[in-house]
């Protein structure tokens, strides 16, 4: 109860309207960031996806301290962002790119999108997050795509909550799962990768044909699945949905007052697939120094502390204080599923096509 109250208070501080202008100070430590000296006033264009968000005062603070104005340029999802960057490699639309994730990284690296740079602030970032970066980009945050479970629904029906991917093929869980199309949705692809990581290239098709026989429903996007089909998300009738490990805290943060004491969903940790988001200096930028300073800033304690409640992801730098709503309700799987980005890039089309044949035809 006390934890819930504290969580609510924090959420109110961070997301409440109006008055609290420096609300981020509740979670942001005051340690100065490792960003180097100041620059002559200049503007760095930060290319990113539509889901990007930060506390506004952080941008202003950075500008006041360094003379660098960060112009946030959005347009489309992560896939569109990376493809646009790949098409204009060497003659970029901006100076820094943030938001290329581990399913898309190889494509960007192969196209020569980045001027290799790893922020010194990433020294303590775990090796697992830096794997496959070829020292060209810096990991900024990570998040997991996991199956979310409507606990109340299972309690009411008196059915045990499923805990493994295998469980989902059992008769008692028939017609309960909704997933996204791996061909059109980022979490949909991540969940397909989770099954490939679990059952291997030889086994995943068999698993999906069992899921299909057990009534899995496939829709095109996250919104259609979560808001449309999931029992705890809206008007749906299925209590299991592919979403994020941070969806439960997001439920609380976005809930209207009075805040619920606990989220309606929990997370099936064995289904979690890890996605890492990277930032890099774009090859061809005319101001590489300032661009690097912006990458360093993304790794700074104040930005790292801000990403959980701004974008519902975990900071890459270990030891960054997490908001209580995260420590209490977000799942942190100890061994998330992963596949090497290079392998994803090489086999994605083949995997998705095979999945399409097994699951949809």
């Amino acid at each position: 109860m006390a934890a819930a109250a504290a969580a609510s208070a924090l959420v109110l501080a961070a997301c409440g309207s109006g008055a609290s202008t420096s609300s981020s100070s509740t979670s942001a430590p005051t340690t100065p960031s490792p960003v180097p000296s100041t620059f002559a006033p200049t503007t760095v264009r930060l290319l990113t996806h539509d889901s990007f968000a930060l506390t506004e005062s952080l941008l202003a603070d950075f500008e006041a301290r360094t003379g660098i104005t960060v112009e946030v340029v959005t347009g489309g999802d992560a896939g569109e962002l990376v493809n646009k960057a790949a098409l204009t490699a060497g003659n970029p639309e901006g100076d820094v790119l943030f938001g290329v994730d581990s399913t898309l990284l190889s494509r960007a690296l192969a196209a020569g999108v980045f001027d290799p740079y790893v922020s010194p602030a990433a020294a303590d970032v775990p090796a697992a997050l830096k794997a496959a970066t070829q020292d060209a980009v810096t990991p900024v945050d990570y998040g997991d795509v996991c199956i979310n479970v409507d606990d109340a629904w299972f309690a009411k029906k008196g059915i045990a909550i499923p805990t493994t991917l295998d469980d989902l093929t059992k008769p008692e869980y028939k017609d309960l799962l909704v997933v996204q199309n791996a061909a059109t949705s980022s979490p949909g692809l991540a969940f397909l990768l989770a099954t490939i990581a679990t059952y291997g290239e030889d086994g995943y098709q068999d698993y999906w044909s069992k899921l299909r026989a057990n009534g899995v429903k496939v829709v095109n996007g996250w919104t259609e699945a979560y808001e449309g089909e999931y029992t705890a998300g809206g008007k749906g009738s299925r209590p299991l949905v592919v979403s994020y490990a941070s969806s439960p805290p997001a439920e609380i943060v976005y809930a209207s007052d009075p805040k619920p004491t606990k989220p309606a969903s929990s997370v099936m940790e064995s289904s979690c697939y890890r996605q890492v988001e990277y930032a890099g200096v774009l090859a061809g930028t005319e101001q590489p120094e300032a661009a690097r300073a912006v990458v360093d800033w993304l790794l700074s304690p104040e930005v790292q502390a801000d990403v959980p409640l701004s974008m519902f992801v975990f900071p890459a730098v270990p030891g960054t204080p997490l908001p209580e709503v995260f420590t209490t309700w977000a799942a942190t799987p100890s061994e998330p599923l992963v596949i090497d980005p290079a392998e994803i890039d090489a086999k994605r089309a083949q995997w998705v096509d095979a999945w399409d044949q097994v699951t949809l035809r």
Partner: protein
Amino acid sequence: MQPPPAWWFAVVPAVFLGFFFAWPLLTVLGRGLSPAGLDVLSSASTWRVVWFTLLQAVLSTVGTLVVALPAAYALHRLTVPGRRVLLALLTVPFVLPTVVVGTAFRALLPESWTGTLGAIVLAHVFFNIAVVVRVVGGLWSHLDRRYEAAAATLGASPWRVLRTVTWPLLRPAVLASAALVFLFTFTSFGVVLVLGGPTTTTLEVEIYRRTVQLFDLPGAATLAVLQLVGVLLVLVVAGRLQRRLAVRQRLARADVAPAAPRSLLDRAAVVWTAVLAVLVALPMLALLHDSLRVGDGWGLDWWGALLQDGPSTRDVPVWEPLRTSLSYAVAATVIAVVVGGLAACAIAYARRGGPLLDSASMLPLGTSAVTLGFGLLITFAARPFDLRGSWIIVPVGQALVAVPLVVRTVLPVLRAVDPRLREVAATLGSSPSRAWRTVDLPVLGRALGVSAGLAAAVSLGEFGATSFLARSDAPTLPIQIGRLLSRPGEAGVGTAAALSVVLVVVTAAVVLLAERLRRPGQAEL
């Protein structure tokens, strides 16, 4: 006496379409097209997609005609109470963003319908009723009543009059509207993605998937060419049929005064229109319902949330996206009206080449938005035309979609101008350009007013073509709605519903305003 030479009007549209449509399109196709891309043509799944695209487009077109023609009749020939409001109501869906209606539609349909061909066709009918009602109604309201009266006097039943007199006179307009609906549904993206399922895929969705998910540019380029060829075929065939079926007739100058419904057919048409109005209003009422529903009760929480300006860049108060959307709408409207208006003049006055320019101005509607978007990106990436990140690229993209609609609105009006009026002016000593200014320009002005409303509405609701063009200002209304919908919990859905209602009201206001500008006796859409 001649109006100014046609080529004089054609210069600006030709340069605009060449610069912002043909050049980027050819650039991106040139980059993508390669023998490797031809592989997609030998894949069975490609042809399954082509077949489904055709099937749903044909069914949607036929369905829209069947549903909308009685309403076109009732609203343009009969005295129906609240006619203007009904007309505006039936128009609003056409300009609503798919992301808004798709969600509302999903909530209304039975669950077993989601992801089916039926759901897609139903949504397409909903979106395109306006096209048929306006294009066909525009001609219908000018049909001289005396033809029908003569047939009735000679003893023909109302049904026989409809079949042997009205239908042949109306056929060109029906065909024109059918061609438009076919184009819209053949290249449909948002509706198919939101309401369709993973197995109900159109070419446009497949092009998007190949470009964005698979980065298979050769395959995407091949499919984009395939789609373009299909669209061209439809335009050419429809154009020929339209000219062959065109019946020389004396159109009434002004709207024919509507008559009270008398026959059984008349009454059925009025009842049908009323039913249709209710059905069309349902998804919008569902949005209003969702915006007021808080937990198990009712409240204004989500409307209040629209006004909040939180500390995060994510929390934008409603006026920021509203301002962004309206500024884009103003810019896109100015561009579309200038380019489309001049194109319509060129087509109307051209002695030859008119049909060619006509078809060319329609092509952007049939082009894959994602292909064109990437084309704009790589074409305008170098000096002296480095427009990336410049705000102007967004309204330019929106204007490309609106230009064909402006042409369609203005062209019939220009064609209806009696050339004898210009001759009279010339006889009285006017120069050709002075004659044009005094005779054509006033009529043109009002038609341009109507088309401006339409162009603004298209820009307000536009989501697909320009959503991935980079920009650094606040999101547009449809993009902000999409963002809100991606938040778990009822607050996201509720606030998105409230913002959708704002968008519906703004759009409806623009359409109604344009209605007021329309002088009686002028052709529509």
